[in-house]
Every structure is written in structure tokens, then in C-alpha cells.
């Protein structure tokens, strides 16, 4: 998927332009607008960039505004038929859910997480990512062997433990194995991109999303809204429903429905158990 993205991105323009004030002045079909999604390391990175654009520190950003900006970005990208990687869409689904939680005040008897709690989780993840990014920067700027500090240029011997007369790293071993097995296997199998959701895809996405939720959520609404184009909607619904049943059977999630054709509510069984535990 990212490869496809790269090709489409062509000459990337700074994506800040997407939020230029005169949004309406730009035609939807205008070919010059290309967004450098490829320049971002995933949706969380994009969110971090947007948060930085709020010009306040991470502890003070408005998560609601951030969610809205992100969703606006996804909508604009879809409007210009930019193909977004699944990660971006999963995040959009989650943010749409978060937004609804933040806008609707918590109902009495609602034992799930509040919008504020979910927002705090997002804030935590942004801070953690930013911290790692800073750490990476500080790491590369350390005095590095072979660049700033040096080892003995003329080693007089190689100290070898006796038992290590032969040496190989696990990486050597695994590479040799993988290369060899691959060579033997028939590798020219190409899986054509298909317009349907595989059960596995649907399952993976469900697992990733459901892990975040503790209370009953009508997940399929957010899923189909952000993850699919109109043509794909029926396959997405069918596959995610099948995957849902499978997960219920495995005891990973719970499902309920008020009446026929009503929205399906899902929740993570493990998380729900934890909540119940905490409440008692």
C-alpha cells in the first residue's frame, strides 16, 4: 500500500497547504494538489505534526480540534481520490469515535471510558512518540564509534574465546535459512490487488480497533465510514461481520444488538473484565 502511495504522491507538496484558509478556492479535481503523506511516518506522526501546528505544548492541545483537523484531512484526501494507507483510515475511524464521545456528555450509567479519558490516551501516545523521536535524535548525535571516537587502528590480535572457534550470528543463521527456503519455494506468486476485504484484513483491523475500546461501541459505523469506498462497502461489512463472529466465538470480544437491523455493539472482553474489576 505505501508503494502505491509513493507513486501517486509524485512531487509532494507540503501538506500544510491542505489547511490553507481559502479551501473552497481549490477545485476538487485540481491535479496540482498532491499531499506528501509519504513524508509522514504514519497517522500518529501526522497527528503529532498537526498538534505542533496548534503552537502550544502537547499538554495543552485541544484533542477535539486535533481530531477534527485529522478527519478533515482524511476527507480532503478522499475527495481528491488519494489512496490512504489502512493505518490512516483506522486512525480516522478511532478519531471519529473519540469525537463523538467528546461531543456527547457522558450518560449516567455509562460505565465506559469518557471522551476525556480517551483523549488522554491519545495525548499519552503522542507524547510517547515525540519522546522517542527526540531520543532518536539525541542518540545519533552522540559521539559515535568510527565517526567521533575510534578503536585501535592496528589491533595486534583478536581475542577469541576458545569455544568460539567458529562464529556466526543468529542473524547470519536466519538469513541463510530464509534465503535458502525462499529460493526453493516458488516465489513468483503474485497476489493481485483485490477489491474485496479478506477475512484476515477485516480481522486485523477489528483487533487493532477493539483493543482501544472498553465499552460498547457501534464499531461498524466508523469502520465503513472511513475504511471503504462506496463500492467496497458491502464486502467490508460482510468480512468484518464474519470476523466479528469469529472473534466472539474465540471469546475475544462480546457483541450485542437491540433488534433486527439495529447497529451492532461490540466490546473487548478483556478490557471489559478489567473495567468491571476496577469498579468492584
Amino acid at each position, binding site marked *: 500500500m*505505501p508503494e502505491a502511495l509513493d507513486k501517486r504522491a509524485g512531487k509532494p507538496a507540503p501538506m500544510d497547504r491542505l489547511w490553507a484558509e481559502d479551501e473552497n478556492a481549490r477545485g476538487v479535481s485540481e491535479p496540482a494538489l498532491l499531499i506528501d503523506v509519504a513524508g509522514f*511516518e*504514519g*497517522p*500518529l*506522526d501526522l*497527528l503529532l505534526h498537526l498538534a505542533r501546528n496548534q*503552537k*502550544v*505544548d*502537547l*499538554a*495543552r492541545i485541544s484533542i477535539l480540534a486535533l481530531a477534527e483537523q485529522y478527519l478533515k484531512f482524511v476527507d480532503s484526501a478522499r475527495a481528491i481520490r488519494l489512496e490512504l494507507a489502512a*493505518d490512516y483510515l483506522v*486512525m480516522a475511524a478511532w478519531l471519529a469515535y473519540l469525537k463523538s464521545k467528546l461531543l456527547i456528555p457522558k450518560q449516567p450509567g455509562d460505565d465506559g471510558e469518557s471522551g*476525556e*479519558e480517551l483523549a*488522554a*490516551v491519545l*495525548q*499519552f*501516545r503522542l*507524547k*510517547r*512518540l*515525540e*519522546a*522517542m*523521536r*527526540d*531520543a*532518536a535524535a*539525541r*542518540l*545519533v548525535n*552522540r*559521539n*559515535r*564509534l*568510527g*565517526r*567521533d*571516537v*575510534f*578503536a*585501535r*587502528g592496528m*589491533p*595486534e*590480535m*583478536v*581475542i577469541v*574465546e576458545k569455544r568460539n572457534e567458529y562464529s556466526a*550470528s*543468529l*542473524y547470519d543463521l*536466519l538469513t541463510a535459512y530464509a534465503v535458502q527456503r525462499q529460493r526453493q519455494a516458488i516465489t513468483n506468486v503474485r497476489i493481485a490487488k483485490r477489491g474485496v476485504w479478506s477475512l484476515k484484513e477485516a480481522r486485523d483491523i477489528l483487533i487493532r480497533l477493539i483493543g482501544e475500546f472498553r465499552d460498547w461501541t457501534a464499531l461498524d459505523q466508523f469502520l465503513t465510514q472511513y475504511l471503504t469506498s462506496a463500492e467496497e462497502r458491502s464486502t467490508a461489512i460482510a468480512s468484518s461481520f464474519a470476523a466479528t463472529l469469529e472473534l466472539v466465538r474465540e471469546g475475544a470480544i462480546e457483541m450485542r444488538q437491540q433488534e433486527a437491523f439495529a447497529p451492532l455493539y461490540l466490546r473487548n472482553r478483556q478490557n471489559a473484565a478489567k473495567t468491571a474489576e476496577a469498579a468492584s
Partner: protein
Amino acid sequence: MNDSANATVIQFLSDVADMNPAERLHLAEAVRMAEAIVFASAEPVSEKQLAQRLPDGVNIAAAMAELQQIYQRRGVNLVRVGDAWAFRTAGDLAFLMSRDAVQQKKLSRAALEVLAIIAYHQPVTRAEIEDIRGVETSKGTLDTLLETEWVRMRGRRRTPGRPVTYGTTEKFLDHFALEEIRDLPGMDELKGAGLLSSRMPSNFSVPQPPSDPDLLTEDEDPLTDIDLEELGLLTPRVTDD
């Protein structure tokens, strides 16, 4: 671990003071031998390897502490790399050495980020790395890091699916001039801020919506990267002398 190591060094130095002249001579000879062995090797030499080569009964920790002291202010320093020892040119002479620098393969931004996550969060599974970055790790990224030999597969997590865990190697410590993982920049602060946990810690401060008129208004200056220090995400840089 750092504290106990320091305590040990102090202990050995007082040992040295307590020694009789014969013992001191013995130690001085051991120091020379260790110096020769470590100096001769381009790779760090483990204490186990030293023990195999030095006469029996030598207090290796004491010898290395003394040697480290001798080289402390020199153009070449004795450094600890995990459980091993190596001589390396002094960090403050980097400007002088750039001529010797070998062309190093530049890591992509993604690879660097993954490397940092593995270093700070180890042992860490691929799924956990992806959770922190919020994006799938491309196939080549981990492969590249494994190839540098800074990162290794450590084992498997005893959870369903038994996912492989990743960690850093001694080569990583050596390359980035770290004695041990605890010496990673900002490690303690990050841990203290709860930013090294896989789930949001319960004490993580939930920000309050701004209701205070003293808060930033639109005409105030934006915060810059330097303010990260205030966030506790960066410790003020301590410059070595």
C-alpha cells in the same frame, strides 16, 4: 546497577589502600597486563576473557578501575561497554579525528525511530513497536537494523503467539559510547514520566481543559522545541569537560 557498580569501584579502591606492598606490585603488574590485552584488541574485551588470560587470583575489577583512572584525562580512554572493556579515543577530540571517519550507512528516519524504541523499551515485540509508532514497520527496517548488529532477536515473550522480542547488542553500546542501557540519554526522566510503559500509566496527568485566563492566548509566542526541556522530555544537556 550503576550505583552498585560505583559502590564496587570505591570498595576496590579502598582495597588498594589496604594492600601491602607485595599485593600492590601484583596489582600493578595485572594492570599492565590488562592494559596490553585491551589495548591490543579492536573489539571490547570481556572480563571473562581477561580472567582467562590474567594470572589466577587477580582482582580484575580493581585492576580495571585503576586503569580507567590512569587513562581518565588522556587522549585515549578506557571505557566500559556492557560487561567488556575497550580503549577508545577521547570524545572531546572528535574534531581532530573526523579525517579517519569511515563512511557510515545512513539510517532512515523510520529505522532510527525503531532503533530508539527498541533501545528504550527493550525487550520489545514488533507489535509493541508498531503500537508506539502507530504504523506498521516496513519489512526492510528491522532487517536493516539486524544487519547493523545493533539490534538482535532476544527471545520470545511468554504470551499467546509467543512473539519474538527485540533488544540491543553490545555493539550498539559500543557504537553509541554507552556503558549500559541505563545510560541512554534521558532514560530516567522518560521512565519517571511514564513514557516507557506500553499502556498509559494511571498517574499520567490528564490535562484539564483551559479554563484559566492566565493560559496562553493567541497573541502569545508559540513554544519552541527548546521548551521540550520544560516538558521533562529532554534533560538539559550536560556538557562533558
